[in-house]
C-alpha cells in the first residue's frame, strides 16, 4: 500500500511541475488531451484489463457524455457541473441496462456487440441533426466555472483536467487492490471458478461496465467544456481502437500502464510530425515493434525485456 501511495505522489508532483517547465508552449494543450485520454484508458482498463471484458464502443460513451453535456448546457442553459453529473449518471444507467444482455456474450461476440453499440452512437451523433448539430458539429459550449474562476485557457484547463485524472487514477488503483479488484481478476482468469468461489460474476461485470462508461462520460463532459466545440469525428470507431491500443501498449491490468499508454499515443504523433508524410508509417512500425517485443505492455514488459536481454546475448534466442 505504501508503494502505491508513493507512486501516486510522484505522479502528482510531476503533474504539478510539468506546466511550469512548458509555460506558454502548445505542449500544455497536448497534455490536456493526455489527461483526457488517460481517464478514458484507465476506465477501459478496468473493464478490459481487470474484468477481461472487451469493449470496442468506448468512444461512444465518451461521445454520449460530451453531447449530453453540450446539449444540456448550451440548448437548455443548465449549469455545466450539474450537466456533467447528469451526463455521467445517465450514461452509467444506460450502460448498466445495456450491460446485462451484452455482457452475457464472450470473446469475439462481445467485441462485435460493443462494436455495434459504438457505431449506433456514432450514427445518432451524425443523424440527430436538430439535437447534435450533425456532422458539422456543435459549437458554443460554455467553459466550466468555479465561483469567479472560468476555465478558459490552457493552463487552467490543464489543472482542472489533471485533477480529475488524478482522482480517477487514485480511485482505480484503490479499486484494483480491493476485494472487488481481486474478484474482477478472478473473473478474468476463470469466470466459472470465480462463481464457485461466491463471486456474483454477472452483476460485477455489469457494474464495472457501468462504472467504466460513467468515467468515460465524465471525460467526455470535460472534453466538451474545454474544447467548446464537438463533432462526431472525434467519437468514431477509430478512437475506440486508439483507446484499446493505449490500454494494451501500457499493459493490461496496470493503471499506471494506461497512463503511460495514453501519454505515448498522444505525444508520439506530435514528435513524429517532423517526418511529414511518413509519420503514419513510422507510428505504425513503432506500435508493431512494441507489441512484438513488449506483449505484456510497457510497464511489465520493460523489466522483462531487460531480464531477457542478458541471457539472450549468450545464446541468441529467437
Amino acid at each position, binding site marked *: 500500500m505504501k508503494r502505491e501511495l508513493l507512486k501516486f505522489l510522484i505522479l502528482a508532483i510531476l503533474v504539478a511541475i510539468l506546466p511550469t517547465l512548458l509555460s506558454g508552449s502548445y505542449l500544455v*494543450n497536448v497534455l490536456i488531451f493526455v489527461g483526457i485520454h488517460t481517464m478514458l484508458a484507465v476506465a477501459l482498463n478496468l473493464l478490459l484489463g481487470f474484468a477481461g471484458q472487451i469493449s470496442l464502443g468506448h468512444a461512444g460513451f465518451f461521445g454520449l457524455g460530451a453531447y449530453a453535456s453540450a446539449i444540456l448546457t448550451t440548448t437548455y442553459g443548465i449549469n455545466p457541473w450539474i450537466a456533467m453529473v447528469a451526463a455521467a449518471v445517465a450514461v452509467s444507467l444506460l450502460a448498466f441496462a445495456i450491460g446485462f444482455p451484452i455482457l452475457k456474450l464472450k470473446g469475439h461476440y462481445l467485441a462485435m456487440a460493443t462494436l455495434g453499440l459504438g457505431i449506433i452512437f456514432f450514427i445518432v451523433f*451524425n443523424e440527430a441533426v436538430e439535437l447534435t448539430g450533425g*456532422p458539422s458539429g456543435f459549437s458554443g459550449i460554455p467553459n466550466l466555472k468555479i465561483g469567479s474562476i472560468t476555465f478558459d485557457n490552457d493552463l487552467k484547463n490543464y489543472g482542472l483536467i489533471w485533477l480529475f485524472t488524478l482522482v480517477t487514477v487514485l480511485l482505480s488503483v484503490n479499486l484494483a487492490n480491493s476485494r472487488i479488484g481481486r474478484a474482477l481478476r478472478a473473473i478474468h482468469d476463470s469466470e466459472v471458478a470465480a462463481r464457485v468461489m461466491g463471486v456474483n460474476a454477472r452483476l460485477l461485470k455489469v457494474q464495472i461496465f457501468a462504472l467504466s462508461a460513467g468515467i468515460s462520460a465524465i471525460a467526455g463532459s470535460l472534453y466538451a467544456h474545454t474544447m467548446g*466545440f464537438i463533432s462526431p469525428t472525434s467519437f468514431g470507431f477509430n478512437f475506440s481502437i486508439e483507446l484499446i491500443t493505449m490500454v494494451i501498449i501500457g499493459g493490461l491490468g496496470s493503471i499506471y500502464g494506461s497512463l503511460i499508454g495514453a501519454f505515448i499515443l498522444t505525444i508520439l504523433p506530435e514528435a513524429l510530425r*517532423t517526418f511529414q508524410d511518413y509519420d503514419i508509417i513510422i507510428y505504425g512500425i513503432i506500435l508493431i515493434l512494441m507489441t512484438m517485443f513488449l506483449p505484456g505492455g510497457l510497464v511489465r514488459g520493460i523489466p522483462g525485456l531487460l531480464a531477457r536481454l542478458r541471457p539472450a546475448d549468450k545464446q541468441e534466442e529467437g
Partner: protein
Amino acid sequence: MRTRLITGILSAVLLSVFLGSSLALAAEPIKIGGLFSVTGPASFLGEPERNTAQMVVDEINAAGGIKGRKLQLIAYDTQGDSTKAKQLVNKLIKNDKVVAIVGPSTTGDSMAIIGDVERAGIPLVSCAAGSKITDPVKKWVFKTAQNDGLAVEKIFDYLKKMKISHVAILTVSDGFGSSGREQLKAKAAKYGIKLVVDDTYGPKDTDMTPQLTKIRSSQAQAIICWGTNPGPAVIARNVKQLGIKLPLFMSHGVSSKKFIELAGDAAEGIILPSGRVIVSDVLPQQDKQKKSLISFVKDYQKHYKAEGDHFGGHAWDAIMLLKGAIERGGVTPAGIRDALEKTVNFAGIGGVFTFSRTDHAGLTKDAFVLVQVKNRDWALVK
C-alpha cells in the same frame, strides 16, 4: 543482437526527432500555417488542397517571394478529426508562430478552431464550404469555398425558369449533405418551390432504390441530389434502372470527371451548379477568372500529373488572397486581416472575391455556372 539493433534504430529515430524540431529556426521567411485533411475520410479535399498550397507557395518563392521575403508553408494533417485540428492549430499559433492560417478542409474542423484563432488574433482563410463558418461574421475568419446556399440558389433559379414547383430532395447524411439539406429547405419557399419528398442516404450506401421508389410515387417534377462521390453516381444509375424520367439535378459536390466515370451513361443530361474550373477551356475569353483558371489547371497538371479540381482551387484562392493581403497590409496578423477584409474583385478559382466588414465569404451566386453532362463531358447551360 537483434534487440540491440532495434534499440539503436529507435534511439536514432528519437534523436533525429528532437534535432529536427530545433533546426527549423535558421532562416526568416514569412510563416503561413496550413491545416488540411490529407488522410482520413476527407482526404479527397485535403490532398489536392495541400498539394496546391505547396505549389503556389513554391511559385511565389521562385518569383522572388513577397517584397523580397520568402513564404514558408507549415502544413499539418488534421485527418478530418476536430480533436487533431484543435491540437494542431495550437501548435501553429504557439510553436510555429505563423502569421496566418490556410484551411482546414472540412466545416467541422474549421468550426472547431475558430475559437482559438479568434482568441489568438490570427487570420484564418478556411477552405471549407459550410456557411456557418462566416455567418455570423467573425473578426479573424474568412473562407474561399463557395457557400452551399449559392449553389442552391443557382438550381432554384433554373427550376423557376423551367416552371418546376414540386421537387424531391435526396441528401447524404454527412456534413456536406446536411448543410445542403438545410439550405434547400430554407430557400425553397422564396422561389415558390415545394419539397414534396425530403429523404437522406448514408455516405456508404450502395443502393438507393427504396428512396427513389418513394420519389417516383410522389408528385415530384424534379429530383435534387446533394452529395459527394460515389453516392450520387449510384443514384444516377438507380434512376436510370428504375426508368424514372424526371430531370435529375446534382450538387457542386460531384463536379469532377470522376463522377462521369462512375455514373457512365447514367450521367448524361444531369445538370449541376459548379465552379468554373471544370469548364475553364470553354469559358468565353472575357470571363474575369479565365486567366487564373488556366494557369492553375496547367500548373497542377505539370506538378502532380492530375487534373486540378475545385478543392485545390480553394487553397489556391486562400494563398493568393493572403499574398495580396501581405503585399498591401504587411506581415503582422492584424495587418493581414485588415488588408484581407479590403480585398476587392480578386478573380480567383472559386469566383470573384470581394470581402467587406459584413461579408467574409466574398462570393455571389455568379461564382457558380450551371453545367450539363453531354457526351461524357461538361457543357455550359445557357
